C-alpha cells in the first residue's frame, strides 16, 4: 500500500507537533519572560505577557548577590572534567565489548545500564560518609568522580553501539600494519568514531551540567555549580520569582545554546543503531 500524506493530515500533524513543542517550550519561555519583570509583576494575576515594564534589575541584583561566573566556571569544570575522565574509561570499555565480546557482554552492558535505574538517594548516605571521611566534600575532584561514575554506563552504551558499526576488518588491518593496541585505538578507531564520540561527549556534558542531586548534596560553596546557584534563590526569606527566574535563565543559557547548535549531532548519537 502506498502511504501518501494528505494535505489535511499534513496540516493537522503539523499543528499537533507545534502544540506539543510549544507546551514543552512554554516553561522556559515563561522563565525568561519573568526574569525581565519586577517582583510584583512576576506574581500578579492575571499575568502579563508583553505589556509590562521590562527591566534588567533582576540580573544586576543576582550578579551583585552571588558571583555567577564562579558558579558557571564550576559547572564547566565539572561537566567537561567528568566527561573527559569518563571518555578514557568508556572508550576502552566499549572497545573491549564491541570488538572482543564474550557470551556475557550483553548482560554486562544491560547490568551497567540498569544501575542508572537505581534511585541515587539510595546510596546518598554511604557516599556522603565516604566523601566526609576522605575530605572530598565540596571539592571539584570528588564531584567529578561522582558525576563521571553516574554517567559512565550511558557513555559506554553509546560508544558501544557506535563502535559496533565500525568494521572489525579495519582494526585488523591496523594490527597487521603493526599498530599496537593504543595506536590502533588512537590512530584508527577514534578518528573513525569522531561523530559518535562527539555526540557522547555532548550528551554527557549536558547531563552533568543539569545534574542537581549530587551537586546540591555534596557541595556548599567552593565546588558549587550553577544548580546550587539557582537553589540558593529559593531561600528562607521567601520566593523571589523574578530573581529566581533571572538566576535560572543565566544557569540554563549556556547549555541551551550548546544544545541548540548541536541538535543534529545529539539526535544522531541517541538514535544511532536504532535506524539504519
Amino acid at each position, binding site marked *: 500500500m502506498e502511504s501518501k500524506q494528505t494535505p489535511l493530515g499534513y496540516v493537522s500533524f503539523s499543528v499537533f507537533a507545534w502544540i506539543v513543542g510549544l507546551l514543552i517550550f512554554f516553561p522556559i519561555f515563561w522563565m525568561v519572560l519573568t526574569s525581565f519583570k519586577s517582583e510584583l509583576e512576576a506574581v500578579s494575576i492575571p499575568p502579563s505577557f508583553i505589556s509590562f515594564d521590562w527591566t534588567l534589575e533582576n540580573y544586576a541584583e543576582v550578579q551583585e548577590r552571588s558571583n555567577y561566573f564562579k558558579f558557571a566556571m564550576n559547572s564547566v569544570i565539572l561537566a567537561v572534567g567528568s566527561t573527559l575522565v569518563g571518555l578514557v574509561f568508556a572508550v576502552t570499555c566499549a572497545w573491549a565489548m564491541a570488538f572482543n565480546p564474550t557470551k556475557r557482554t550483553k548482560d554486562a552492558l544491560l547490568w551497567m545500564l540498569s544501575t542508572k535505574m537505581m534511585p541515587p538517594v539510595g546510596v546518598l548516605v554511604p557516599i556522603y560518609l565516604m566523601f566526609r571521611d576522605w575530605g572530598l566534600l565540596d571539592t571539584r575532584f570528588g564531584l567529578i568522580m561522582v558525576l563521571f561514575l553516574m554517567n559512565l554506563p550511558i557513555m559506554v552504551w553509546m560508544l558501544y553501539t557506535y563502535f559496533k558499526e565500525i568494521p572489525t576488518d579495519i582494526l585488523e588491518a591496523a594490527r*597487521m*600494519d603493526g599498530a599496537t593496541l593504543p595506536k590502533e585505538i588512537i590512530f584508527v578507531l577514534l*578518528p573513525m568514531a569522531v561523530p559518535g564520540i562527539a555526540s557522547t561527549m555532548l550528551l554527557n556534558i549536558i547531563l552533568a551540567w543539569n545534574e542537581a542531586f549530587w551537586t546540591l548534596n555534596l557541595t556548599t560553596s567552593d565546588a558549587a555549580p550553577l544548580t546550587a546557584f539557582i537553589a540558593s534563590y529559593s531561600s528562607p526569606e521567601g520566593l523571589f520569582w523574578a530573581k529566581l527566574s533571572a538566576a535560572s535563565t543565566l544557569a540554563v543559557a549556556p547549555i541551551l545554546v550548546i544544545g541548540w547548535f548541536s541538535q543534529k549531532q545529539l539526535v544522531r548519537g541517541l538514535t544511532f543503531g536504532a535506524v539504519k
Partner: protein
Amino acid sequence: MGAIRLEKVKKTFGTLDVIPGVDLDINDGEFVVFVGPSGCGKSTLLRLIAGLEDVTDGKILINGTDVATEAPAKRGLSMVFQSYALYPHMTVYNNIAFGLKMAGESKEVIEEKVQSAAKILNLTDYLERRPSALSGGQRQRVAIGRAIVRNPAAFLFDEPLSNLDAALRVNMRLEITGLHQELKTTMIYVTHDQVEAMTMADKIVVLQAGRVEQVGKPMELYNSPANKFVAGFIGSPKMNFLGGELAKKYDCHEIGIRPEHVAVSTENGEIPATVKIAEHLGAETYLHVEADGYGPMTVRATGEVPLGEHDKIFLTPEQDRIHRFDAHGLALGKS
C-alpha cells in the same frame, strides 16, 4: 624469504572443531591458493597464519621460527582483506604509509616506498584522495599497495576479488598474478572460486570442514583428484558421477567423468539421453541432459551445436578420462 610450515595446526571455537589439525608446507615464493566451499575453514586458516586468531594447538613456522604465539605485526606478513579495510579517514598516501609509520621509518624512506608502490599499482594520481573517492578496483589496489610497502615475508589475500564485478575481477586476477611474477614473494590466497584457484595458483590446497582434502598443482588436481569431493569441486561445470552398470563395468562404486570428456552424438553411443536445457555460449555449448538410467548429467560440446530441449542424444565417456571411486568416495586410480 617466506617459507611457511603448518604443523598440526588446530582451532576450536568453544566445542566446535573448525580446524581439526592441518599440516602444510608452503615454499618460498610460491603462490598457494586455499579453496573450498564457504564455511570450510579456509579463511580461519589464513587468519591463524596472520595471527588474527590464536591457534588452539600446533605450530606455525615462518622461515623456521614458530610464530604461533606472536602478535600479527611480529610475523612480517601483509594481508589484503575482502572488504579492502582501508582507513576511511586517511588519504591514499597515508593508507599506504601507515604500516611504515608504525614501524618508525623516516619520512624520506616512507616517501620513496609509497611513491614506488603507487607507481607499480598506477595510483600516483590518486595519492591525495580519500578511499571514498575511489572505485572498487582502485581501492583494492590501495589495499595491495599497503601490503607491498612493508616488504613482507608473505602476502595473505582473503577473497580479495569477491567485491568486484566480473570484468574487473578478471583484470585484477591478472594484475595479482603479474605482481607475483614481479615480486616473487610467497602469496597465500583464499577463494571459494575454483576458477581463480586454477588460474592463479602454483599449488592449490582444497579444504573441506577444516581438513585438507588434497594439495597439488592445478592440473594435478584436475587430472587426478584424490577423492570425490576434490573431483567435484575442481573443474567447471562439475564432474558427473555415475553408478549402476557403468560403475560395475569399471569395477568400482562410482565413476566420475568431466562434462568436457563426454562425446556427444545424435546417432549412437554408450548412454542414451534427452536434452533438458542447452546453454549456447558460442565457443561452447553446455547440455544439461537426463541420461537414461543415470539421472541428470552435464556435458560440454565445443562450438555451436544445433541441439535443444527434448532432443535425443547419445553420450560416450572418454575411456582414459574416467575417474573411479570406492564406496567412501576415495579415488581408485585409473582402470
